[in-house]
């Protein structure tokens, strides 16, 4: 059935309205952050992104947090998930339940109950914003789990492992050199989404009184809204780049799985 002209026009109009709603604020941010007090345009707020020492320190903290969270969450999750597939499949449901649990327990609730645990963490590791890594690993777990799980479901892990084992490979070799290269795209998308989540995280850091990027952007908003808006827009654009990268990775996975 071919859609009538009316419905086609209606569709375009509606899509345009959605575009206005979603792109409007982004354009407003660009306008707002480049507005000069005397009228005209000024890029001073954008220059502040690299000049403001507090914001710079916070950006570095957030990037380091992203890196550490990626490493720790993957190191914890990927071998466990592969092991469950290969050796303890009966624990699969439990693993899924545990990994998706953080979706049901708001980050805010975890923070409220975290004080005791964090007293121990600061006792052993010193007081550093990088300690946030430990909570962030929990927060990204559902997203990382889904990415890796999708990739693992796409391959026949037990058969691959059996083949490698019969050729004399140890379990370590099986995991690192046989399974992981086959689920590489899933691991990569897990890393992408982890970075995006960590760079956007505010709740935990602000309530535990650590300065990450979002906390400082929020603080700056009280004194220098222009810089805050510029930083927010920059952060959104960065998230765009990261997550578009993710969809490119995801797209290539679909293509390869179709080809095989």
């Amino acid at each position, binding site marked *: 059935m071919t859609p009538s002209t009316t419905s086609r026009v209606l569709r375009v109009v509606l899509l345009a309205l959605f575009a206005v709603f*979603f792109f409007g604020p982004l354009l407003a941010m660009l306008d707002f952050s480049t507005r000069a007090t005397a009228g005209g345009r000024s890029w001073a707020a954008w220059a502040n992104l690299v000049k403001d020492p507090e914001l710079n320190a916070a950006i570095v903290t957030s990037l380091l947090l992203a890196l550490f969270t990626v490493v720790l969450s993957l190191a*914890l999750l990927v071998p466990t998930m592969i092991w469950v597939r290969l050796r303890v499949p009966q*624990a699969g449901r439990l693993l899924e339940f545990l990994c998706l649990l953080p979706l049901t327990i708001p980050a805010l609730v975890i923070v409220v109950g975290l004080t005791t*645990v964090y007293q121990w963490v600061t006792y052993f590791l010193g007081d550093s914003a990088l300690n946030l890594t430990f909570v962030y690993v929990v927060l990204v777990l559902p997203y990382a789990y889904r990415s890796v799980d999708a990739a693992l479901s796409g391959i026949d892990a037990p058969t691959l492992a059996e083949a490698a084992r019969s050729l004399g490979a140890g379990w370590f070799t099986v995991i690192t050199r046989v399974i992981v290269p086959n689920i590489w795209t899933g691991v990569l998308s897990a890393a992408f989404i982890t970075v995006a989540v960590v760079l956007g995280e505010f709740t935990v850091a602000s309530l535990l009184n650590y300065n990450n990027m979002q906390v400082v952007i929020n603080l700056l908003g009280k004194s220098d*809204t222009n810089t805050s808006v510029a930083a927010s827009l920059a952060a959104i654009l960065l998230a765009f780049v990261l997550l578009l990268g993710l969809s490119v990775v995801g797209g290539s996975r679909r293509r390869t799985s179709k080809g095989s």
Partner: protein
Amino acid sequence: MSRRGRLTPSVALLPFLVYLFVFLLIPTVTVVVGAFVEDGRPSLANVSALGDPVALATLRTSVALSAASAAIGAVLGGVLAYLVVIGSLDSSLRRLVTSLAGVLAQCGGVMLAFAFLATIGNQGTLTVWFRDHLGLNIYGSGWLFDLPGLILVYSYFQIPLMVIVFLPALDGIRPQWREASVTLGASGWQYWTQVAIPLLRPAFLGATLLLFANAFAAYATVAALVSQGSPIVPLLIRAGLSSEVLLGQKNLAFALALEMIVVVAIVMGLYALLLRRTARWLQ
């Protein structure tokens, strides 16, 4: 197989389980236990303080905000998803919309607060434009910081989330079903009311519940927008954490956190139930 032979593979799961025990289970249990303790003794004072008018009003605002933004997000997101699906011929539009929705659904938080401040805040682009060109004051007395404004802001990440969650369900509707019902003499209206909508209803309701939980648990955007007072439960928890004593109860933050767990758990439980019903025909 020996007992040892059965146990050894499971041992490898220990690091992961211990980690979750320390950083997920202990905090949650701390909250649940803390809600029933005051001054080191078991007490129902905190939980009963949830019945306080202030706490109740906050919960009501939170539920209203979550429900309204979930309803708006579900309807508009559903429409957007449908617009994308019917144009399945130009799949580049679909790829673009799903990618953008993936980013925007994650875009809650501080950045979103500043996005709307820059648009319709006191000095926002749109506010200034209306003031200069039409002499209209769309800022009013700051409705952006009240419930209507928060609903608008929340829609910005609820609609994209709906698109992501609801697209697979719309894809599950086969064009053949429409052809079949038309062949059997159904009108377009009958197809929608008697075939498509009943099929989509569980998925739609499930997605709405997910949106509700998403809004209910959200903290950052409102925390950045509202610096005075605590209109929603998460902000009341912030007040409880920072000022120690709230409504005369030290551990009220724990009780409020427990309240959040209960609400979100109920909603997500219903969601899981609906999801199971949807899964029957979605495959």
